[in-house]
């Protein structure tokens, strides 16, 4: 998604620099910070092992240990930007920017079911976009199921605008620089 005309003219933000700590709507203390491949990989894989497959979108997250491992390798590799939401030692949310080309990246975010609807998604998204901005990513895009209104309003809240509503999935874009 590198057609510049599909992105908003003005950069969104400002966004926080990780780490950020918030108390969620259930009173849990949640820290959102940069993903550390050494320290966090096991906890991140455990989050996806526990993830309810009913919340999959367009085939991700995949299920099963091997598919999850392959997928995590590809989305946490060089040039990617990843942040995790942690409650005590557990990873309960994850957001990622995977570059396609020309300082452009695709965004995805997942929050474990027991932690949804508590404001963690907003914090994860804003912190991810702050980290992406710092990493020099200029444009961010995503797709979301068109019926998923809670997700669409969350994306709009942080500055995403609809760019293509004709396909199966709703496509949205945001400018960071």
């Amino acid at each position, binding site marked *: 998604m590198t057609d510049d005309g599909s992105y908003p003219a003005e950069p969104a933000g400002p966004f926080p620099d990780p780490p950020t700590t918030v108390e969620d709507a259930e009173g849990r203390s949640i820290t959102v910070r940069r993903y550390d491949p050494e320290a966090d990989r096991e906890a991140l894989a455990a989050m996806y092992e526990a993830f309810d497959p009913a919340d999959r979108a367009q085939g991700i997250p995949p299920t099963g240990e091997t598919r999850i491992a392959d997928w995590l390798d590809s989305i946490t590799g060089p040039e990617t930007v990843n942040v995790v939401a942690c409650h005590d030692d557990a990873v309960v949310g994850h957001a990622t920017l995977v570059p*396609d080309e020309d300082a452009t990246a695709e965004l995805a975010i997942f929050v474990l079911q027991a932690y949804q609807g508590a404001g963690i998604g907003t914090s994860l998204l804003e912190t991810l976009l702050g980290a992406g901005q710092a990493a020099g990513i200029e444009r961010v895009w995503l797709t979301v199921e068109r019926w998923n209104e809670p997700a669409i309003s969350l994306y709009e809240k942080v500055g995403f605008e609809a760019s293509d509503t004709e396909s*199966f999935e709703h496509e949205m874009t945001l400018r960071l620089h």
Partner: protein
Amino acid sequence: MQVLLGIGGSDDSMRALERAVDRVAETGDDLTVAILRNPASEAEPAEIERRVRSILDEADVSASVRHLEGDPGSQLVDLAEREGFDRIVLGGGETSPMGKIKLGSISEFVLLNSHVSVTLVR
């Protein structure tokens, strides 16, 4: 079974052909390959046909190869329904950098409009 495979030159459509040819080699199904004008692919129909024939030859499978002009999805569904095919086979879509499965515009049209069973090859 009469199988109609639509191919427009995208990577997933080439993979679908390879898999369908392997399958036909086992089952003896009757395969027709329809070369489409996929607006998302830059491959020329003649080049696609050359690649199709080379895959068929390599697997020693015979198939009739046809060219469909005009809107690819509707022409493919029309051909399948008019000529009594049992199944349409198409590529299963590309994946985004994130790994999300994205259906192409042809599969989207065919899935929503075909009265003939459709297989998307993953």
